[in-house]
């Protein structure tokens, strides 16, 4: 053996040896990354920058894990702590870890650098105490100032494995521990946005009347500014279940059509006439070449060149103002498309008529029926009192209305009931709120009309139970005024639906049952909901 060969062999050999030794932790953490982001633990993959808490049922009875639980979820024996896991990517923005007051309970949240499998920080009883707190987790290249009241955790790596452990003091303590574990949350840090004021409901104005099939855009949903915008819902990325849908459906679900082009055409006409287009100009330049959605709106809601011109004359500021909402449309289109794709995966029988964003005649803000969803941009844009973030508001509105489209198509008898009870109407709206929250990746439904604490919830919901069979909706739906937030039916409905979903082992079947609800009373009975339930 010549020296050259010996050196080459020896060099490769030693390099490989050291490289494998060095990379070993990284390989192992890669398995965890895949387990979290690709496979999940039984409820579908866990989106990046979100936390997943092991199901309560699994901890309660580890011998009979839910059928959906993955092998990985059932590996290992740990009866001490509830686990919550997540994978962070800090490249775009820091994350905020929020922990509740643990009232002396042992817990820890471990931050692991996946390159070396070492823990660079802990939040928890040992290190930070058990009081509530917000922690800003920043990547290695982050520059900025730490918001007041937050503590900084500086990560050496943009990728971070987060692993939380919350002590369970016995079977009776499990609900409390689980509730606390679920309150450990992640939010994207967006320094420009103001911090949300904890659920102070803003006054709602008297809303325009709305029939079942003609929803005023329920605009109306305040989003937490800290919600994790790009997060996908648990299970959202799970493969489409094989055999349950035809390939044609799959293709459709890949491509929900979202038209926003009508808006641009409208403003071309509008600007060309310095804000005073004639009826004929509008009819010829805007309505006639319009998308199918616009023409549908035109037919059913009398949106014509003439009526628009009248509306412009009567309320010029609405049409002038609406321009500020145009900028968000491309992003809204992307996010709605993503949300509807998720809907298609979670609910393979979903149908996908188009979504159209157009200019209406000052109203309606939107219609949803079997033909699809049409949004009146100028009307929706004018409704600013709940969520000043137009993009978030539009995404949620469209997702909400799109759920109504599914209900209209697949459960028409229930959905179109002309004389619904409070319970039925609230469940229809609650289902739309819940599904919208689920598919848009909002971390929670933040309702402006929600009570501020669980005691209030109980009070409101006890009243709800008393009037659930009445057909007088005026106390529950569309009853907001300038000074008192209304629409509590949406909130209670949302909570019933959420309770049902959380109590269901098979989430996909649960989602299907939520959308194609047949009987409100039965649904309520099996939802596990009761007044004041903590969700």
């Amino acid at each position, binding site marked *: *053996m*010549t020296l050259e*060969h*010996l050196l*080459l*062999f*020896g*060099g*490769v*050999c*030693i*390099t*490989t*040896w*050291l*490289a*494998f*030794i*060095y990379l*070993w*932790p990284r*390989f*192992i*953490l890669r*398995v*965890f990354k895949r387990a979290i982001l690709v496979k999940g633990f039984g409820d579908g993959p866990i989106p990046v920058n979100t936390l997943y808490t092991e199901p309560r049922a699994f901890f309660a*009875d*580890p*011998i009979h894990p839910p059928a959906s639980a993955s092998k990985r979820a*059932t*590996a*290992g*024996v*740990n*009866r*001490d702590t509830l686990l919550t896991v997540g994978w962070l990517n800090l490249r775009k923005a820091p994350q905020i870890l929020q922990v509740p007051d643990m009232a002396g309970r*042992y817990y*820890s949240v*471990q931050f*692991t*650098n996946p390159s*070396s*499998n*070492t*823990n*660079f920080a*802990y939040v*928890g*009883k*040992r290190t930070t105490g058990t009081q509530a707190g917000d922690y800003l987790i920043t990547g290695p290249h982050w520059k900025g100032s730490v918001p007041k009241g937050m503590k900084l955790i500086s990560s*050496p790596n943009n990728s971070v*494995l987060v*692993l939380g452990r919350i*002590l369970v*003091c*016995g079977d009776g303590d499990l609900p409390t521990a689980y509730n606390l574990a679920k309150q450990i949350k992640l939010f994207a840090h967006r320094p420009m946005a103001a911090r949300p004021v904890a659920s102070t409901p803003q006054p709602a104005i008297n809303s325009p009347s709305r029939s079942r099939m003609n929803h005023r855009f329920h605009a109306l949903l305040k989003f937490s500014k800290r919600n994790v915008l790009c997060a996908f819902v648990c299970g959202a990325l799970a493969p489409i279940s094989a055999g349950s849908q035809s390939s044609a459906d799959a293709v459709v679900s890949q491509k929900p059509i979202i038209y926003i082009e009508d808006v641009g055409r409208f403003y071309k006409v509008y600007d060309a006439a310095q804000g005073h287009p004639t009826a004929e100009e509008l009819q010829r330049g805007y309505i006639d070449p319009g998308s199918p959605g616009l023409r549908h709106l035109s037919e059913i809601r009398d949106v014509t060149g003439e009526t628009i011109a009248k509306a412009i004359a009567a309320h010029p500021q609405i049409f002038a103002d609406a321009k500020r909402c145009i900028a968000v449309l491309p992003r809204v289109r992307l996010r709605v498309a993503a949300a509807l794709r998720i809907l298609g995966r979670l609910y393979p029988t979903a149908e996908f008529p188009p979504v159209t964003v157009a200019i209406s005649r000052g109203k309606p803000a939107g219609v949803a029926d079997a033909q699809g969803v049409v949004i009146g941009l100028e009307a929706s844009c004018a409704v600013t009192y709940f969520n000043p973030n137009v993009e978030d508001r539009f995404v949620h509105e469209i997702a909400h209305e799109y759920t109504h489209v599914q209900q209209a198509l697949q459960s028409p008898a229930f959905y179109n009931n002309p004389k619904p009870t409070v319970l039925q109407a609230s469940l229809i709206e609650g289902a739309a709120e819940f599904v919208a929250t689920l598919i848009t990746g909002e971390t929670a439904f933040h309702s402006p009309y929600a009570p501020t604490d669980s005691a209030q919830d109980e009070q409101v919901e006890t009243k709800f139970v008393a009037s659930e069979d009445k057909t007088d909706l005026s106390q529950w739906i569309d009853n907001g005024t300038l000074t008192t937030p209304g629409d509590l039916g949406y909130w209670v409905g949302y909570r019933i639906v959420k309770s049902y979903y959380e109590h269901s082992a098979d989430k996909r079947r649960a989602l299907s049952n939520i959308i194609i609800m047949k009987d409100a009373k039965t649904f309520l009975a099996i939802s596990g909901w009761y007044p004041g339930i903590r969700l």
Partner: protein
Amino acid sequence: MSRTLSNFAAFIGALCVYFIIHLFFSTHVRTVRNDVIQGFLIGYGLAFAFAQAYARIKAVKVNGWITMFGLGKPGNGMFLRAAHAQLYAGPVNIPEEAMCWWTNADGAGRTLSGRHDYVMHFQAAHLPPNDAFWSLTMGTARNHFVPNPIKRYSVSDRSGLLPNADGSIDIYIQNAAPSGHESNWLPAPTGDFKLWLRVYVPGKAILNGTYKVPPVVKAKIP
């Protein structure tokens, strides 16, 4: 780390070393391609064997209980990190947060099996020192929970263990309920099993290595 894996690693290591020695006396014509491929394979084998061997060296075994100190700390060298990966394939706590021991053998080194009855005896005031909690968890040989009539899968400072008259505590680890000692029973499967001792926020005596986990002892037949 299991004995089988260690033996396998030793075998691979020996094979690699034999191959390297053999190379010097080999009269075969060498090519660059062979050098690279063989170098890679041998390097990989050595890395595996080395990591296993180093894990064995770094692991601390007391009374049959195996653990490793200093895992998960930033600044750990690559060799310790590789050893960590052999013992626990995952992100474990740093010692200050939690320590974890496991065993599949009794104090005398015999494999734990539900065919026998065992006792773990903690002397008075010698439960694992901690500022949070401790637990002893039962797993099958493949590390799954063990079904049992009382639905008890671990014993801990939260399970109401009854002390003996002298303040010491016996934990009865066996398949059938120990009559008169049900409160201190940790149900075992009929086959082989593993035990995990976890101590969260361990006390100083654990961190400096002076605390010795008591052995799992085969119960004397009365």
